[in-house]
């Protein structure tokens, strides 16, 4: 396979993945009792589009299986087949199978056990369709004739019915299907023109020439295709391709008249798409300039017609390009700060106005560029419907998942990385927190357990909360287990929060838990580490007997932030603006490291000490009050220099020891400014305050 094809195949898998997610969402919505024909349509569309694009790559196994699913869905869509929970479960398993097939294409041909699984599912699908397996072929030895009449036929004094009758004299007409697809709507239809088409199966001893002679007089004006008995799928493919009705309909006719088995049809459709020069690899190839757009559109028109009409429209862009754009916009923002500064020093009013206008646009460009990397978290959230569905069924629990704030946006990289930890938390809640229906009833609770997944923005970070209404955390049990595992000697003197945090300690999870989590190899410690890698925090809130809430707080990791510039000695530092509460002058505090903020104790850190800055302390210092996760702290600095927009540049490995620096930035004068990591600093100030035992009383 050439390099280009590999890339195309990757696009195919990504796209299929999205379609499969859409399909799963719709299936779960159906299961939740929503009766919406749009849902069936969505499921059908997904299966259909996957079949189409799989055909382009000649992935026969996917095409064949998706076709089976589609057939059943078609029956559901037309109302022949009512949908119920059992059918949804079957369709979910079919969904999984398609996903597995699609996934296996990246490596090699589908492994045998996967195919066997597919055959088992296919048999079940057939059972739903009234036990009509594909192999009901009646006419192994019949000729298949496709006739599309020319419009002039009647006026030339010919009649297709006479031809049919003549064919009848040659042998036995096993089946005749009359097609009215070419018949225009009544107003535009001329009764003396012939619009009819026929699919004919003829069992006969006659040879090709004899059969052909029946069409002698109409051959000029009409389309006639003869397919001898025992033809290969490729010949059928050619036929389906040549005819105007669209292969889905035609395929169904061929199967229903028994001329083709479903399997052969699927094979033919696979060939149809790859063999035909009019059907190249689709859009991907257009993008790569390997095929003209018109050709692809013409070829795919019919398939895509049923595709995403209502769905959102996307353009796929390489992440690197996006990063480059964001980077450039960052530089633009910096350079515009310089321009604005220079302009404000000049007396040229016109220049100042022009600069003001352009910087407004630059701000908009910045927001738009950053928005490109932001994706709603809803996609990740809705995946958990499936997890909840499967796991609660497995465990015999009744659990509903309520999702809110799915539209909350955050950086794509963050979204990608929190998927696994969240999955673990959700599974954990289902497995351990929520009780069985009997236990719940005994405790006077609703037997239907409830999981809530919520996301929202707070203080420039994103807060994801997972709440359950289960039994809550048991301090004693956790403490006992931690002692048993040698994590602590005794729980005495530990706060509840400290005890609960123990479940995130490496080695806390037991072996039986790991097996429950189907070998994902993610423990609670990994959850915590992943979140901390994203510079986030994990909090637990316990409501004994009533449930618990896990809060994940993460920075949005924007590449550009609004910052507040301060200086200590000669160095400049940037405090993320959304963490800044207020600024004040540092009064006479002596050597204390806390002050009285309107009656509250406010611990503070002297950046000067932290940085070991040896320059002379100015007479007046200022305090920047910052807050994070509901906690406040003061940062003592030399001077306040005001707001600015700045681009976060990551620091090299060398600086990784500097915990309280989250990045750096280039300031307008070409100087480097360090960006302070407020969460770390707040934590440090609080911890020091706690250990040195300054109490509110000390202030009074």
């Amino acid at each position, binding site marked *: 396979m050439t390099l280009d094809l590999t890339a195309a195949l990757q696009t195919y898998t990504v796209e299929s993945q999205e379609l499969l997610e859409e399909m799963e969402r719709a299936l779960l919505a159906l299961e939740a009792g929503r009766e919406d024909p749009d849902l069936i349509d969505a499921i059908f569309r997904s299966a259909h589009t996957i079949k189409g694009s799989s055909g382009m790559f000649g992935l026969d196994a996917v095409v064949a299986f998706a076709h089976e699913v589609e057939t059943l869905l078609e029956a559901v869509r037309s109302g022949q087949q009512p949908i119920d929970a059992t059918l949804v479960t079957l369709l979910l398993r079919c969904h999984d199978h398609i996903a597995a097939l699609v996934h296996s294409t990246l490596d090699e041909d589908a492994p045998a056990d996967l195919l066997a699984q597919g055959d088992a599912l296919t048999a079940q699908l057939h059972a739903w369709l009234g036990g009509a397996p594909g192999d009901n072929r009646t006419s192994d030895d019949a000729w298949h004739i496709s006739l599309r009449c020319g419009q002039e036929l009647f006026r030339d004094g010919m*009649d297709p019915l006479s031809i049919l009758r003549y064919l009848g004299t040659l042998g036995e007409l096993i089946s005749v299907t009359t097609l009215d697809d070419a018949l225009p709507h009544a107003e535009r239809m001329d009764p003396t023109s012939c619009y009819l088409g026929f699919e004919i199966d003829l069992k006969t001893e006659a040879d090709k020439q004899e059969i052909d002679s029946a069409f002698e007089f109409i051959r000029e004006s009409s389309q006639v295709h003869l397919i001898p008995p025992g033809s290969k799928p490729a010949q059928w493919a050619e036929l389906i391709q040549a005819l105007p009705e669209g292969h889905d309909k035609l395929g169904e006719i061929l199967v229903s008249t028994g001329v083709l088995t479903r399997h052969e049809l699927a094979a033919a459709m696979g060939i149809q798409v790859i063999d035909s020069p009019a059907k190249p690899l689709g859009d991907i190839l257009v993008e790569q300039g390997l095929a003209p757009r018109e050709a692809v559109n013409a070829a795919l028109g019919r398939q895509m017609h049923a595709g995403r009409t209502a769905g959102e429209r996307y353009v796929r862009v390489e992440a690197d390009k996006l990063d480059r754009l964001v980077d450039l916009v960052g530089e633009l923002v910096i350079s515009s700060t310089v321009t604005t500064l220079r302009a404000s020093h000049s007396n040229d009013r016109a220049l100042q106005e022009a600069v003001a206008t352009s910087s407004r646009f630059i701000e908009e460009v910045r927001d738009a560029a950053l928005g490109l990397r932001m994706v709603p978290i809803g996609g990740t959230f809705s995946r958990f419907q499936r997890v909840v569905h499967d796991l609660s069924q497995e465990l015999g629990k009744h659990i509903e998942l309520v999702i809110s704030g799915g539209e909350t946006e955050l950086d794509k990289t963050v979204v990608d990385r929190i998927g696994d930890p969240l999955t673990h938390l959700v599974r954990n809640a289902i497995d351990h927190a929520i009780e069985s229906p009997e236990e719940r009833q005994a405790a006077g609770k609703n037997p239907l357990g409830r999981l809530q997944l919520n996301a929202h923005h707070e203080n420039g970070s994103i807060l994801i909360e997972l709440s359950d209404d289960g039994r809550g955390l048991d301090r004693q049990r956790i403490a006992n287990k931690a002692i048993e595992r040698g994590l602590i000697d005794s729980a005495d003197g530990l706060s509840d929060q400290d005890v609960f945090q123990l479940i995130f300690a490496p080695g806390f999870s037991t072996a039986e838990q790991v097996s429950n989590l189907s070998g994902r190899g993610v423990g609670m410690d990994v959850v915590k580490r992943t979140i901390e890698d994203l510079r986030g925090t994990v909090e637990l809130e316990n409501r004994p007997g009533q449930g618990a809430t896990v809060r994940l707080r993460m920075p949005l990791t924007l590449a550009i932030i609004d910052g507040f510039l301060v200086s200590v000695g000669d160095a400049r530092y940037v405090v993320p603006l959304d963490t800044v509460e207020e600024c004040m002058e540092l009064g006479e505090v002596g050597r204390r490291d806390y002050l009285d903020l309107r009656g509250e104790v406010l611990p503070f850190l002297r950046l000067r000490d932290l940085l070991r800055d040896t320059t002379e302390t100015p007479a007046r210092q200022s305090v920047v009050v910052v807050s994070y996760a509901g906690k406040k702290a003061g940062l003592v600095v030399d001077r306040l220099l005001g707001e600015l927009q700045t681009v976060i540049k990551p620091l090299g490995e060398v600086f990784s020891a500097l915990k309280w620096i989250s990045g750096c930035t280039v300031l307008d004068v070409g100087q480097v400014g360090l960006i302070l990591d407020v969460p770390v600093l707040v934590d440090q100030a609080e911890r020091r305050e706690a250990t040195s035992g300054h109490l509110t009383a000390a202030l009074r």
Partner: protein
Amino acid sequence: MSILEDDEHHRLHLSGPLTIYEVDEVKERLLAQPGVTLDLSGVTECDGSGLQLLMLIHRDAGTRLTAPSDAVTDILHLCGLSHLAEEPS
């Protein structure tokens, strides 16, 4: 060919041949009365164009086809379209 209205049963009776020579007129008449029931018991002869017209009015004018004569039954059977016409009720 003639088309007679049967007031009592709210249906039209088509009788005589239904071929390329008649289809223009029949089309006009039948499209003007969508949703009617068309009694085909009097059709003496039907060719491909007649069949095509029956398919059209059935599809686009919602015309119910009933009581096919032998000539009509024969071609409907030939073309695998027996479901198009209902037996007389």
